[in-house]
């Protein structure tokens, strides 16, 4: 069984899956749960004009922020960029188009694409600046905003453990947006801290079934290859 369903590969292989102008979904929340080795691989490929979609802009040296800071993203859909002044500067210089979305609405848009639905209706954000270009839909005597589904060309996900088929479990709050991001792209790439054989994960504990995963790479080092802001303040 292992042989036929084995999705474990190397960074050379996944680096060929990234392309200029792609829509890239990234898991993570403030960098927690963003795959560190895949981010470095992405940077090394030299891809540009990337359309990014994820919770936030990370920090300039953390998570997706490392890529954004290089100025190679054309656009970003996120709930905030407050922790990454580089993203703010690029936006103000007109070099990065930023679309803000309410945080939970953004993850639901990703889920809507991931589960094969065609968007949803909500009152969140109605009448605010963020609603300016969203269709208004009347149902009965109420008016809602329409939120469109999101599907990426490529998704990058960070898991604690993967089996070779791609069944995933996460670590504490590093789960965050990853389960939805994993479902919502044409090609989902997982970086796992640990890779085990099929049958070694308890089927009750699997958070993302392997059917969604196309490629798995092992983390190049244990844990994150950056320092958190609170670690730096310690010093």
């Amino acid at each position, binding site marked *: 069984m292992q042989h036929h369903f084995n999705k474990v590969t190397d960074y050379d292989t996944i680096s060929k899956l990234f392309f200029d102008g792609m829509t890239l979904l990234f898991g993570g929340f403030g960098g927690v749960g963003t795959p560190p080795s895949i981010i470095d691989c992405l940077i090394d490929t030299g891809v540009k004009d990337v359309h990014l979609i994820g919770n936030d802009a990370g920090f300039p040296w953390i998570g997706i922020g490392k890529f954004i800071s290089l100025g190679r993203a054309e656009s970003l859909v996120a709930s905030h960029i407050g922790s990454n002044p580089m993203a703010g500067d690029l936006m103000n210089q007109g070099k990065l188009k930023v679309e803000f979305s309410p945080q939970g609405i953004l993850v639901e848009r990703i889920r809507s694409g991931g589960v094969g639905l065609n968007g949803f209706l909500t009152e969140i954000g109605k009448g605010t600046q963020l609603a300016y270009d969203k269709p208004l839909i009347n149902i009965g005597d109420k008016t809602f905003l329409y939120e469109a589904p999101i599907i990426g060309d490529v998704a990058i996900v960070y898991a604690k453990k993967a089996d070779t088929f791609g069944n995933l479990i996460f670590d504490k709050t590093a789960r965050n947006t990853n389960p939805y991001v994993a479902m919502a792209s044409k090609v989902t790439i997982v970086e796992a801290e640990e890779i085990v054989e099929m049958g070694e994960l308890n*089927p009750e504990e699997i958070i993302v079934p392997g059917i969604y995963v196309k490629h798995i790479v092992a983390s190049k080092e244990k844990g994150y290859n950056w320092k958190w802001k609170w670690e730096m303040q310690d010093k």
Partner: protein
Amino acid sequence: MGDARQIIARRAALEVKDGMMVNLGIGIPSLVPDYLDPSINVFFQAENGILGMGPTPLQNADGNLSNAAGLPVTILPGASYFDSGIAFGMIRRGFIDVSILGALQVCSKGNLANWIVPGKRVPGVGGAMELAYGAKNLIALMTHCEKDGSPKIVKECSLPITTFACVKKIITEMAVFSIHEDGLWLDEIMDGCTLADIEDATGADYKISTSL
């Protein structure tokens, strides 16, 4: 020529290839696993929330481990449990490689009718609309004709539609058809049948594949 249902199931089993994610409907499709090439590995998915089902348990069946028809199953290494919302997410989004459903009628545009016969008892649609909508490859299994001899492969379905333009292949005990942009193609004739038999028993126009 054997039991029609077994003939259909045996032919349908050839559509299941190594490494595939497969969903089987109730009725004839549930017989397909009996005919799979034992050298291939596939993962069967069920709508209630399981991927990687193994065979029916020989003993100690567990009331909390069943397929979508409520029958006891086992799991293979690498299987996962999830909720039925996620199960249908996979289905709608196209992660099921092949979905094999029983059919009442199929038309030459690939419309599937399999959920209701008006005036008879109405069992309800279950997951058929989504399975038919989402699968990368939807195969419809049915006996070629009704008991009264009327065709089930038709120009227009007279029964209410489950899902429009979804069927890619029809397998009956007489023939295998595929459905393309330009309509219905006869691809295979089953042992013991003739082109004339099929002509008589089919209610829609079709082209004949050059391989025949």
